């Protein structure tokens, strides 16, 4: 048994022969088991490429990736993957699709779980996949994935086709299942709002590279939103700053005590992500699980101002 769900080492993937065709470059990250991890980033950031590598569907151009302590192909049976466009055979019925899950996963298939997810959506087992709406197809694809009883569940933009109610309900099912069986869930999205409150780990990708990686609480604790009169923010690392009149609002990584004149606040996940997306030049930051600063670039040391002091330590111990 390993405690690492996904570990990528300098993973890189180039499509075609063009020098510019890198979809993912120098990607180094680690995800412990039992986490619910969000992979966020703008379109073309490399989210799908990262998930497809973890699923063993692509061979890396450089570097490597290991899954559940072994190669993706050796872990095939223990993980499930739902691709972005939810591919299913249109000519099969829902029941036949679940039968396929049973036939192709003879040692793991749990029909009750798969059937429950389909039933919760009020789907008819006899209807053909081609007659289903996008959201209903997503539900069948998720039923197929969860019926496999995976240890690692890789979901590429899972909720894009779902209405808010179904999204909420399916996310609830996913999280309950993850909590009950200790399943590690990795889901990519470019809609940050749908991840808030359900994830405890974050990978932010941009331009094929890792921008932020680590436990969500620790990442949030490593950043502070400051507002104050225009002035120098040194020695802190400024991720992004905006000036309105004489006021400046900035997302910083504090290096030591923040000066007294600044109003500080803890950023939300969305603020954290958006600030990094707006500032592609900001240095990358990787935090390890224990929250120690060993593996961090850009700095995580020093004391915070009183307001953020509490969040710092508890982010680490989750």
């Amino acid at each position: 048994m390993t405690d690492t769900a996904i570990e990528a080492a300098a993973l890189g993937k180039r499509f075609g022969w063009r020098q510019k065709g890198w979809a993912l470059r120098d990607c180094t990250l680690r995800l412990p088991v039992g986490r619910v991890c969000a992979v966020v980033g703008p379109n073309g950031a490399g989210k799908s490429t990262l998930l497809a590598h973890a699923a063993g569907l692509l061979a890396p151009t450089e570097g490597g990736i290991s899954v559940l302590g072994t190669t993706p192909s050796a872990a095939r049976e223990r993980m499930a993957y739902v691709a972005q466009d939810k591919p299913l055979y249109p000519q099969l019925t829902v029941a036949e699709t679940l039968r396929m899950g049973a036939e192709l996963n003879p040692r793991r298939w749990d029909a009750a779980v798969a059937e429950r997810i389909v039933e919760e959506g009020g789907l008819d087992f006899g209807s053909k996949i081609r007659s289903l709406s996008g959201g209903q197809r997503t539900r069948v694809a998720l039923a197929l994935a969860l019926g496999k009883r995976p240890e690692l569940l890789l979901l590429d933009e899972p909720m894009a086709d779902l209405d808010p109610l179904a999204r909420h309900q399916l996310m609830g099912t996913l999280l309950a299942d993850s909590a009950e069986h200790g399943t590690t869930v990795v889901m990519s999205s470019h809609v940050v709002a749908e991840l808030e409150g359900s994830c405890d780990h974050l990978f932010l990708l941009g331009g094929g590279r890792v921008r932020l990686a680590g436990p969500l609480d620790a990442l949030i604790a490593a950043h502070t939103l400051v507002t104050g009169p225009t002035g120098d923010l040194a020695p802190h690392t400024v991720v992004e700053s905006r000036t309105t009149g004489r006021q400046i609002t900035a997302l910083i990584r504090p290096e030591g005590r923040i000066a007294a004149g600044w109003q500080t606040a803890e950023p939300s996940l969305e603020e954290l992500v958006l600030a990094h997306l707006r500032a592609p030049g900001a240095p990358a930051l990787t935090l390890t699980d224990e929250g120690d600063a060993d593996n961090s670039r850009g700095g995580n040391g020093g004391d915070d101002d009183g307001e953020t002091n509490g969040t710092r330590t508890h982010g680490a111990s989750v």
Partner: protein
Amino acid sequence: MTTAVAATATVAPKGPRPRGLVWTVLRVHRPALLVWCAYVLLMVGWMLWVQHVSGARIRAELDTCRRRPEGACIDVMTFSHSMNEGWIGTFIAYSSYGIAAWAGAALVGRELERGTAQLAWTQSVTPTRWLTAKLAVPAVALTAGTTVLVLVYRWFWSADEVLRGDEWYYTDPFLNRGPAILAYALCALAVGALAGLALRRSLPALAVAFGFVLWFHLYLDDHWSELWPMRTITGTVSGHDLDALPASHFWPLHLMTTGVVLTVAAAATGAAYWLLRRRTR
């Protein structure tokens, strides 16, 4: 709450029924299997009809005609018979074109284009096993169907030499009377699968697989007679030597052709596996 769900109720009782990947391939490609069965039955039925119904009538009429003193039986009937015979031979000899198009487009190309291949590879099935099932199940169906066609065609061909229009060295009877036609079917399957894997889209794979098999079939049709040394007949026609293709050369030539086609099939299969292994992990 889900409490101890050990119920795997939908897994049907054991028995001699297809399971796993074989079930999946059969279910997904059921329409193609039905079309293939219909084609084989249609060809067999056609041959039986030509031999027993229309052929018998023509033979009877030829008999009565020859007994008349004025003689001079015009071969209109025989002509229609050999037309039928020609069409049957053509439909069998060129079936590999359709097989290549199907294998490229529907068997593999569309699966990669739609992502359903990747769906299978993320179940407990390796890409290699997936490709093996994708090739083996159709190969069994093609072998069974083609064997029936070859046996019936051989009977059909040898049944009456009187009404026969084709010579043994014509393309259709040359290919259809032995394993060469099966080799072509398997070759088309492998080439289609390779094209589908390489191009990952159904229409380009269809075009390339069809185009290759068309070219290969026509090319080999021009060259198979070189696969076995001709018999040289000395000094028969005005003192010149003559290279002849005696009917006894059918089997050597046929088996050599089969060998060439199977070599291409094996190369395409190997390339398909190599490509798949290189692409996925």
